[in-house]
């Protein structure tokens, strides 16, 4: 009977240990599973983010393509047709002696046609600076500033250091500057805009300063444009800081763009 008792104790002790081990195993299973799940979810989130960024990249690329197409169409077709109109006007002037109001009309017609051609060229250039490849970022930004300078706003461009940068990333930077400048013109009510590029080692700092009403991020006034800027900045792995300058009124936007274009 004694032996039987100790056997029962043995069974119970062993059984309990076994059960505890089993329960520990099951708990471990749950913990491990959740850990793996968490890792998997993280991975998936990363994949999703990457996918999203790819989509945005594609979107921006197709936007660029579309701009190129429209720009080329405008420039080549509409430009040529306007030239045709000018040629005909010139013919009329040569064949008929124009007098008084007819001459005025001819002069005005010529002026309108000239303005139209200039506008077409300007829009085409805005849409796709064909010359960007050759001119590079600095030249293009300078041209952009000159284009709007004196039209209700004074734009001052300056550059520290100099580098010729003309690849796809540079075009993205140019697009950002273009968007920001046009934002400032449209919304800031400023009469002075400073644009500066400063080339540092491996880094480009783009700074825009205006003396306008300041930036209200929640106003939603420039939603799409700013979204575009932010997406492009993200693609460039650039740091963007939008804020009101400490002393005067207005808006200050600072972009830090890594240059690593010739490395990697």
């Amino acid at each position, binding site marked *: 009977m004694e*032996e*039987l008792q100790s*056997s*029962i104790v043995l*069974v*119970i002790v*062993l*059984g309990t240990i*076994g*059960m505890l081990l*089993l*329960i520990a195993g*099951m708990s471990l*299973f*749950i913990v*491990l*599973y*959740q850990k*793996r*799940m968490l890792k*998997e*979810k993280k991975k998936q989130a990363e994949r999703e983010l990457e996918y999203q960024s790819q989509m945005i990249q594609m979107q921006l690329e197709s936007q660029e393509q579309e701009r190129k197409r429209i720009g080329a169409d405008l420039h080549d077709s509409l430009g040529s047709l306007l030239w045709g109109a000018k040629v005909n006007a010139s013919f009329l002037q040569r064949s008929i002696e124009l007098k008084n109001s007819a001459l005025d009309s001819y002069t005005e017609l010529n002026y309108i046609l000239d303005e139209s051609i200039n506008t077409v060229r300007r829009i085409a250039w805005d849409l796709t600076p064909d010359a960007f490849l050759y001119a590079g970022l600095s030249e293009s930004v300078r041209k952009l500033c000159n284009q709007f300078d004196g039209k209700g706003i004074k734009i001052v461009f300056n550059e520290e250091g100099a580098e010729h940068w003309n690849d796809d990333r540079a075009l993205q930077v140019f697009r950002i500057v273009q968007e920001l400048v046009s934002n400032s013109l449209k919304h800031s009510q400023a009469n002075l805009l400073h644009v500066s590029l400063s080339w540092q080692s491996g880094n480009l700092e783009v700074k825009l300063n205006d003396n306008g009403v300041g930036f209200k991020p929640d106003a939603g006034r420039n939603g799409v444009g700013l979204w575009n800027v932010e997406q492009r900045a993200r693609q460039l792995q650039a740091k963007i800081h939008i804020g009101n300058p400490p002393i005067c009124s207005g808006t200050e936007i600072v972009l830090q763009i890594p240059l690593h274009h010739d490395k990697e």
Partner: protein
Amino acid sequence: MDVTILFAHISSSSSIIPIILGLVQYRRTTPDLKLISWLVITSATADVISLMLILNGFNTWPIANIFVIGQFVLLFFVFDHHLKKQYLKTVFVILVCFALLNYLFIQTANSFNTYTSYITGIFLILLAIAYLYRLMSNLVVEKIYNLPMLWIAFGTLVYFSGTLFLFLFNNYLIEHQPGNHQYMWILHNVLNIIKNGFLAIGLWKNYKAASY
């Protein structure tokens, strides 16, 4: 009242909760959980019949042995529903044939069919482990503890490894110290209660998930 009988009572009553849970959601539940409902009902019926036989002094083995086989069949289909492997079905058919042969001719209905018990127990443990392994590699749900089948697999694992251990030990004891070892049945009933508990959790998880 005898302690053995007391535990037998508790054991058979422990099926009540899973039975209720199983029946409440029977119509809108998946085939695997329908089988679990049948398992708890079968288990309860077998317990009640056994209890009545014991109280009236009859041998319970014929009904207990059949229950072992029935339980094996039901649980196999539960796991088969998820694992879906042809070779498992083949093994299953062979095992069932053996169990029936054993019941009729080898160890016969009137004594405990230990072979059947061991073999089906080991097979079910392997199935549960295979199922858990699959869960781990496929990462099917976000919160694994909300998956009903996890608790079914846990219950299977605990119950069958427990009984396997018990029966092996029982055999050893009987060899060395012949006699009626009632406590074995107490322990077995404890395991049965635990198993029913796990099945109840599984059914409850399913009920909760379905009612959202």
